[in-house]
């Protein structure tokens, strides 16, 4: 579970991005963090990953302060940034180095995800394209079976077939107690994966709701997250 309490943060003094933000995210759900470019999505998920520190308030991950980045917390967390950087080694060497850091890592799952993504399992990471590197990153993150998985714009850099593969993989990898957060400004890419929608703009949460409840609310009209998102943003401005 991720609990954010009265979180305030700003990149510069006098320029607050978040002010007294509260948010609770529960295990077993896939959260979609939606917002325009510069809305504060990346900053918020970096707070959750312990890569940015609150000026005031707290952000805890299963009871541990994210900012402390203690090894027990890091074993429960995998963060996929928008820009993926992987070491210049082959995939087998990459596995030899990193799988030991994650106690629940499942090699079989990793190989299966690579197969679905059509990435040769003995590739050299240096020779892979940006999109293929991202696929390896995603495959490893999912196979690490951490309690919390955070993805920043996961579909950026993926071509259309890969986006479909990504959706299939994330859906198949969903386990009952994993908390997944995906931030995006391309709502359509992740529409079918999300259980709960968080809309954010200018550092404020404009809406947080279960997708099922939203679907019911808009029934008989089909729920279109992109239209809903634009409507919420328009209302605000």
């Amino acid at each position, binding site marked *: 579970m991720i609990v954010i309490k009265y979180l305030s943060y700003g990149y510069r003094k006098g320029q607050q991005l978040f002010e007294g933000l509260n948010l609770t995210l529960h295990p077993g759900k896939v959260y979609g963090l939606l917002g325009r470019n510069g809305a504060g999505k990346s900053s918020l998920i970096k707070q959750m990953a312990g890569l940015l520190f609150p000026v005031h308030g707290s952000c805890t991950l299963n009871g541990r302060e994210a900012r402390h*980045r203690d090894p027990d917390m890091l074993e429960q967390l995998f963060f996929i940034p928008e820009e993926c950087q992987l070491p210049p080694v082959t995939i087998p060497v990459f596995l030899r180095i990193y799988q030991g850091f994650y106690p629940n890592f499942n090699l079989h799952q990793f190989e299966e995800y690579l197969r679905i993504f059509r990435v040769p399992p003995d590739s050299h990471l240096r020779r892979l394209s940006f999109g293929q590197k991202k696929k390896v990153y995603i495959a490893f993150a999912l196979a690490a079976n951490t309690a919390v998985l955070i993805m920043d714009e996961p579909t950026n850099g993926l071509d259309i077939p890969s986006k479909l593969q990504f959706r299939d993989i994330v859906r198949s990898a969903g386990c009952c107690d994993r908390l997944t957060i995906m931030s995006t400004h391309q709502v359509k890419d992740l529409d079918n994966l999300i259980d709960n929608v968080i809309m954010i703009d200018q550092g404020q949460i404009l809406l947080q709701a279960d997708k099922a409840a939203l679907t019911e609310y808009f029934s008989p009209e089909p729920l279109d997250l992109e239209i809903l998102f634009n409507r919420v943003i328009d209302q605000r401005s």
Partner: protein
Amino acid sequence: MKQSMALSFKKIAALNRRQWLENRQAYGLTGLALTVVLLLFFFIGWHWRESFPGAQGNGIFLIGLFGGGIAFSGWLYKELSRPADSIWLLGLPASAGQKILIFLLHSIIFYGVGFTLLFQIVETLFYGVVAGSSAGVLHSAIFENGFYTCYLTFINIQLWLLIGSLSFKKAAIIKTVLLLLLYFILAASGNVVLMKMLTGEARITSSLPYGYFQFVHENENIYVYLPALAQHLVDLLGWLLPCFLIYIAYLKLMEKEITA
């Protein structure tokens, strides 16, 4: 307690394996480049041996230890300056202390020991095979007359570079080296100016803070050192400085944020 110690060593071993497996090619090339540069320096020193009297070997050793050490650290610490690399490093399930320890092992112990061994081998080979026994006087004496205290300076510089890499976002190594040079210039020349101002003595020509000062008296250079006890205290602080710098580096890594 025993189990957590074992786990800690396991993590350190895993981080060390990571460092080695990801960079073994670069380590090999570094060794090769150092060998070639050392051979070149030995050749230059031997060829112009009449023009460069004195401890040539020691000079070459210092250039390799400090120059090579700075270049090696610049490459090793780049992981701390690039946001994408830093995210990967900070997210690895290991403590900040364990991660710092790996940087210290590689930039100080492995480079320091590795370079010393390589230097000894290349020097022995060069003078043994190329220059012949007549070049005996050109041999270095790095473990004599307290010369080995240069290792302490080397350790401190490597630690400052680590702190610089954790502090500056861009061109961290260049900025840190410039700051260190500025410090040495200010410390040496500033101290002379300060001493002249305080004492009104214009004949002071050089000095080092917490070290000595030199003045000219009847055309002779006179050196004035600290009293023995004060010098021992300064030396002790000098040996404690690395521990202090390691602690700062640890805190900087603990507090590192990815703002880009």
